[in-house]
Each structure stands twice: as structure tokens, then as C-alpha cells.
């Protein structure tokens, strides 16, 4: 089964710009609010995408100057585990 991952961004605008950057890179991502347990600052947004596209996605974001926050991998039980990329 294909796993998902979630890239957190500090603001809605950053997340929207990030999604456009990924679209241009041919990577489909869904913008969604991050659940409370994933953020220590409250009210964050994330880009959900296929885990096998994560490395390419992070490279595209970095190239475009879109700073991102934590990155999480979704476990088979539905929980999220932070990963260091």
C-alpha cells in the first residue's frame, strides 16, 4: 500500500505557494490543516503527498525558497511519525 507523508508549513500562504511549486514539479499534493498533535505552535498547514515523492518535493521546495517545517510519515495505523530529511 502506498504511504503518505505530510510536510508542515508555517502559514497558509506558504502552504499554497508550496503546493503550486510542487504542481509545477509534477508532484501532486493536497493542502490540509495539520492536526493539533503535529504542531507545537497551533494552527498550521501541511501538504500531503505520496511518500515516494517526498525527496523530490523537498528539493523542489528548497529550490523555490519555500521554507518548510517538520516532515511526517504516515504509519499503517494512521499515526504520524516525524522523519528527518
Amino acid at each position, binding site marked *: 500500500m502506498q504511504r503518505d507523508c505530510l510536510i508542515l508549513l*508555517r*502559514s*497558509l500562504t506558504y502552504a*499554497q*505557494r508550496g503546493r503550486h511549486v510542487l504542481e509545477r514539479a509534477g508532484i501532486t499534493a493536497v493542502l490540509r490543516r495539520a492536526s493539533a498533535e503535529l504542531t507545537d*505552535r*497551533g494552527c498550521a*498547514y501541511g501538504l500531503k503527498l505520496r511518500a515516494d515523492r517526498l525527496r523530490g518535493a523537498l528539493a523542489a521546495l528548497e529550490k523555490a*525558497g519555500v521554507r518548510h517545517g517538520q516532515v511526517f510519515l504516515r504509519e499503517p495505523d494512521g499515526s504520524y511519525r516525524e522523519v528527518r530529511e
Partner: protein
Amino acid sequence: MIYLDSAATSFLKPRSVERAMSAALRHMTSPGRGGHSLAMQAAETVYRCRAEAAELFRVPEPERVVFTMNATHALNIAIRTLVQPGDPVVISGYEHNAVTRPLHALGAKLRVAKAPLFRPEAMAAEVRRLLPGAKAMVCTHVSNVFGYVLPIREIAGLCREAGVPLIVDASQSAGVLDVDFNAWHAAFIAMPGHKGLLGPQGTGLLLCGMDGTPLLQGGTGSQSRLQEMPAELPDRHEAGTHNVPGIAGLAAGIEYLLPRRNQVERREQALLGQLVTLLRRNDDLELFYDDAGQNQTGVLSLRSRTPDAETLARRLADRGVAVRAGLHCAPLAHESAGTLDTGTVRLSLSPFNTAQELEVAAGILRGVTR
């Protein structure tokens, strides 16, 4: 009505502006306040407007485009970021009260670059003389009273050389002339959404070359546990609920303009030339017109021997011609041009005005100045 008051607010707008605002009221709530479809649709609209404004003004990152209530709000953020009480600040002699009043309230020491109307080289020389040691320069791109296009590219270069941050008031130029964030390297560029950008009243933009100090504190829908305003743009300056219907309308205005860059300027120049030709047949009028024709937008101030400016504007309004009279919230500009005691009647054009309207308006003007 023949509407010749577009420098105050563009009344003639593309139909798409009204449709976009109506759609926002029916289908959108507030961005960043929920993950449901109504909030996310609002977020999409707001981001689209931000990205399109970034494209129009050559801003490399959309997050540097901040939504404000109007140009005055944007200018207040910019000025209060850069100016502390008692700081020396250079301004042109053609600034609006939106610039001079915040500076006065801060107790800034103003160095006013005084130069005659339509003499950009003299203005640039005066700015060069005044810049050393200044904390900031605030300069309008176009005078709201006379349509005078100040040499903003040269002034931006002088500010860079002198290491003085520049705030540009693009209230009369945005949507009409080229406003180039990337080339000017300004600290901030402020503009309304409801004039040349063809959006509705209650909208404005601040293009941020630096992060800046928030003028308002409040909810942003992001980093809610923090009690400081977020460090990131645009949230840093966008406390409180966005004017989503207004921003939707502004997006429609910008979308209308994007494929028509330069066309608006050419159209207004042609109309201005026609208007001046018509009005020069009227010996009772004194026109403030740049005969060289290269330093003026579609804004024309005039005075008549009789009646006074307010009476003339009232008579025009009674006959269906909308203009503005008085000091136009810019006493400094009138001082520079020598019209402070009388004020002027201002006729300001839109790309939607027609040659026929100008002929009719000129005829009415002839009738009411006799």
C-alpha cells in the same frame, strides 16, 4: 453621468469585478479559519489575487504581497516600520496626507524635495541633495493632484546609492504605469485596490521588500499558540479577517489588467491629449499640463478665472459630470505648484472613458465657466 474622478476611485470597472464579489459572498468564508470547503475556496481566491499581484508588479514571492484596507493603511505600516520619532525623512513636494500625516504624528524631521511641476530632473537633483543622513525616503510615483509622474526609477537608484530605504506611494500609478518591485528595490510599495487596479473600495496592497513591524496585532489563523505576531509574511501584517469579497473583486480587476499592460497608459494618454485640446479652446481655464507630454498620467488639474474650484465642480456635478475640487488631501502638492490658495478642479480619466464623453464634458465646462 460622465465620470471623470477615477483618481479618487475607479467607478467604471470590468463586469467581472462585481461578479467575483458576488460569488465570494455566496460561496466563501475566511481563509485560514477552517479546513472546510468554504474556507478553502476563500483561501484559493486570496492566494490567486496575491500571486497575480506579484506577477503584475514583479514581486518574486507572492507572500511579499500583503493585503491592507487601503493605501493609507499600507503606508502607515511602512512608515511606522522605518521611521522613529525625530528621524530625518526625505519626501517629495507632491505627497498626499496619507504620507505627511503619519510622518507628522511621529514627529519626523521632514526634508521636502521642492521642485517645479513636471520637472523630474530638478526633483531628482533635490532628492540627491537631501538624502545623506536620512533614515528613509517616502515618495509618490504620481501626484494625485496633477498626474505628475515623478522620476521614481532615478530616485530609487539614488536611495540605493545613499543606503536610504525607500517607500513608494503607488496610489496613482498601480495599474496604469509600470510598477517594478524587482527593479526599484524599495523597502515598501503601497497602493490602493480601488483606483487603477479596478478593485472595490476597502482593498489595498503593500509590497514588502522587508519584513516590517506589524501595525495591528491579532488572529492570523496560523501559529495560534504564539502571542507575538508570526514572523512570516504575509501573516505578520494581516491580523483579523480578510476582506474576501473585496479581494475577490481586486483579483478580477488585476486579471483584467494583466493581459493589457501598457494599453491602459496609452489609452489614458490619448484621452488626456484629446481633453487638453478641447479645453484649450476655453480661454477662461488655466490647465496644469505637461506640454512635453511624458511626465503626466490621465489626471488634469485646472483653474478658472470664475467661478472658484468648488463652485465649478458643483456646477459640473449638477450637469452630470463627476470631478473633484479643492486640495485633494495634498496641500503640499498645491504648495509646490502655487495653487494652495485656490485649490484646483481635477479631471481624472479611466481607460473606460470615451472620446465622446470628453467632448460633452468640455462643452458643459465651457457653459459653466462663462
